[in-house]
């Protein structure tokens, strides 16, 4: 679906953005090393790379957040040197971050004024609203300018962010992982907007790791690996496999999922679970499902549709409004988190550093966190046997090939992959009967993600019941025995044969359409 260079691109015109030989060094190591990048008018240019490849760093340099240690940037053929993000905004560069920079308590039109270099003393609301309406019509970005941001869905908030950039007169729009918060259908609408923008002569840079999506929308791709520019190719001329190989530097192993259909007995059974989120709104309503031993149950859904609350309810961290949880025949609806841990429910939360591990504590302390109250780590229910814990940690570190200088170094200095391995090692080391894995490969490089997937499949073979929560449909369809789809705290339907289903079907359910796909 890639297109030829459009009329807005004259061969003699300088590129919209040209970055040459960009170096950026953090604590003595290169986050970017001699990176060249250029963006033409009217193109969607994807920046691909694994986590830690330097994509975001490069774009932070372009948007004035970081100053490069070497290299030059020119916009429209003129050399520029940004002292702050404000300079970059003035040159027409706008970045939409993964985490939106909106003030929830303000309305859409008020948010437009933020970051514009001084808010006028008298805000001419009518003019602003009229301009927003005009922009949203031209770029197919429907948003109510008067609405408060906190009332908007994530997809709508993203539109507000893009409108904010257009309102400022942005010529170059940088989008960091924009589709991770969208349903497949919303993603399609979003791509339409991107096309309107490029036809108007804007340039769009997409940061992503989802190769399929990128190939369908981009004109050109630039691939980074370990801070270096590997190459720039036309999207029409490459296959998924070549791009993946450029990203990772080797051929990918496909996931070897055993095709066995054997399931054990039902191990976890949820009946009409309802619960509220921290703000008191109903975020789970009437959720019922069963999980069998040796089964991977995928949970699909856009982030924030009750998946987090479901995990918390199933680990005792959040109390139920109503409903019943049965674990191996016992009613555990009122159990404490400690009781869930005792009964073999393991939880791999998405927030590794804020919840799953204690970053300022060392490897031994972190390894002990789920068993420090039990023999043999605990002596007489009072003291801790640090010698035993050190031995245990050493074993886990060896078995999971965790790279760390010493068992006494704080966990925060480990890389993302090693952090996840350590948490996995702790959570899986006691043969849990139920495993709740929330975005277990989020932010990991391909090698580490493969490792995590293999471990999850091993646990399935061993006989654990696994709930896999992910926003990546490819991952879910590849690994799951069944998929349930959540939207606004409800289960919209079950996909019984994930490998025969289409993303369209699942996408409709993610958007809130109830259906029972039975294929």
């Amino acid at each position, binding site marked *: 679906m890639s297109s030829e260079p459009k009329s807005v691109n004259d061969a003699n015109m300088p590129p919209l953005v040209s970055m040459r030989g960009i170096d950026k060094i953090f604590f003595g190591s290169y986050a970017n090393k001699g990176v060249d990048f250029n963006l033409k008018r009217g193109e969607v240019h994807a920046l691909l790379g694994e986590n830690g490849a330097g994509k975001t760093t490069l774009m932070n340099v372009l948007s004035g957040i970081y100053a490069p240690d070497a290299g030059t940037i020119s916009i429209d053929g003129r050399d520029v040197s940004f002292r702050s993000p404000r300079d970059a905004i003035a040159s027409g560069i706008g970045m939409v971050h993964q985490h939106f920079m909106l003030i929830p308590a303000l309305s859409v039109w008020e948010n437009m004024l933020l970051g514009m270099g001084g808010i006028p003393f008298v805000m001419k609301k009518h003019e602003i609203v009229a301009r927003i309406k005009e922009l949203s019509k031209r770029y197919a970005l429907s948003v109510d300018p008067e609405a408060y941001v906190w009332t908007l869905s994530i997809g709508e908030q993203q539109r507000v962010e893009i409108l904010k950039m257009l309102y400022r007169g942005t010529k170059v729009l940088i989008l960091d992982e924009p589709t991770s918060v969208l349903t497949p259908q919303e993603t399609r609408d979003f791509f339409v907007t991107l096309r309107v923008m490029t036809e108007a002569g804007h340039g769009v840079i997409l940061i992503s790791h989802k190769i399929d999506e990128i190939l369908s929308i981009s004109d050109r791709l630039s691939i980074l690996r370990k801070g270096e520019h590997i190459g720039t190719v036309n999207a029409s001329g490459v296959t998924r496999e070549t791009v993946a190989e450029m990203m990772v530097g080797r051929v990918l192993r496909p996931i070897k999922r055993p095709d066995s259909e054997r399931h054990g007995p039902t191990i976890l059974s949820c009946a009409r679970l309802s619960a509220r989120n921290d703000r008191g709104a109903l975020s789970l309503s009437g959720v019922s499902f069963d999980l069998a031993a040796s089964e991977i149950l995928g949970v699909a859904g856009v982030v924030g549709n009750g998946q987090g609350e479901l995990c918390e309810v199933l680990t005792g*961290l959040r109390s139920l409004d109503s409903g019943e949880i049965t674990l191996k025949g016992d009613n555990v609806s009122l159990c404490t988190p400690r009781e869930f841990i005792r009964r073999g429910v393991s939880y791999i939360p998405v927030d590794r550093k804020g919840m799953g591990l204690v970053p*300022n504590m060392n490897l031994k*302390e972190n390894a*002990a966190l789920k068993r*420090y109250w039990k023999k043999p780590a605990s002596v007489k229910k009072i003291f801790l046997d640090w010698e035993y814990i050190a031995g245990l940690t050493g074993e886990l570190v060896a078995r999971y090939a965790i790279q760390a200088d010493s068992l006494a170094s704080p966990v925060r200095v480990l890389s993302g992959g090693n952090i996840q391995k350590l948490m996995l090692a702790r959570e899986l080391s006691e043969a849990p009967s139920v495993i709740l894995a929330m975005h277990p490969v989020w932010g990991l490089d391909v090698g580490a993600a493969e490792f995590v997937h293999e471990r999850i499949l091993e646990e399935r073979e061993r006989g654990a019941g696994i709930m896999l929560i992910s926003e990546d449909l490819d991952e879910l369809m590849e690994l799951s025995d069944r998929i349930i789809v959540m939207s606004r705290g409800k289960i919209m339907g079950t996909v019984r044969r994930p490998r025969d289903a289409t993303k369209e079907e699942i996408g409709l359910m993610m958007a809130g359409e109830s259906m029972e796909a039975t294929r």
Partner: protein
Amino acid sequence: MTKWRLEPRASSSIFFSAAITSASLCAALVAGGVLMTLMKVNPLVSYSEILRGALGSGYGFSETLVKAIPITLTGLACLFSFKMMIWNIGAEGQLVMGALASAAVVRYFYFDSHVAMFILMFAASAISGGVWGAIPGFLKGRWAVNEIIATLMLNYIALYTMDFMLYGAWKDPMSMGFPMTAPFPDSARLWRFGNTRVHAGIVIAVIVSFLAWIVMRWTQWGFEIRVIGESQRAARYFGMSIMRNILLVMFVSGAIAGICGFGEVAGLQGRLSRGFAVGYGFTGVIVAWLARLNPLAVPLVAFLMGILLVGGDTLQVVMALPLSSVQMIQGMILFSILGGELFSKYRLRRVGAAGRSDVPTEGAV
């Protein structure tokens, strides 16, 4: 255009933090010296007077120890709650409650036995200080009431309760109108070293420091306290009870402060009198920080603090400085030391067009 900006340090070595501490100590002495010069006294002479007064004689040394006892205990009281990131600044009130309970035992449950009185007074002061600490703990655990405000306000309730008793029912008829109780009988006094004012509280302080170290380093409970201090969210995920730990820690914190009150009235004063605490509860906050929340460092820091206090008294007498100016100098020195702590966690970088430096944001590299 250049600006200065604070940035978090990637790491700091032991050597480095020792260097920072000595540098800020020097800065503190210089700052105090400037103040002394402005008051027209010679800083070098003054500093040597402080050291001579606090350490130069047997009497001075024993007086420094006398001051270090209560400061060690209130420092440990604060340390327990600070480890869990609970900001108990009510050690002053908890100390007063402990002292009140000790005096009540002497008044209403007196036995003519050293052992019985020690046990009774020790237990009563620990329990009443503990309960005084557990009240804000409960409020925090149950309704998330800000513990800083609650503990601070409870200080005043405790202090005025003491006033109420000292001006009323418990006032010694022989005191010629001064707000104090009658002297405690001998069996209600703590044992003292020779003819100094150093009392058995010093043994209690050392034991409590050591116990606190064991708890934090070697026990399940200390482990829970440290994890909760790092992240309550994580602690809940690991199955720790936040409510139980807040209550327990605030009780223990208050109990240590209460025992400190017992030591002061039974060891030092020999009666309950108004103003016996002179802000030890607040000094404890500073001591806990300066000791970097290390229980074994608390007695050492408390001893240094004792030098400053006793030396300050000497300064008043020898250099004829008014009390308030001595306290200004003390404040100046403490301020510089605490300010220096900033540089062990952050560094100053010049920010400008030429020499910009960036710190990677989460997940940016």
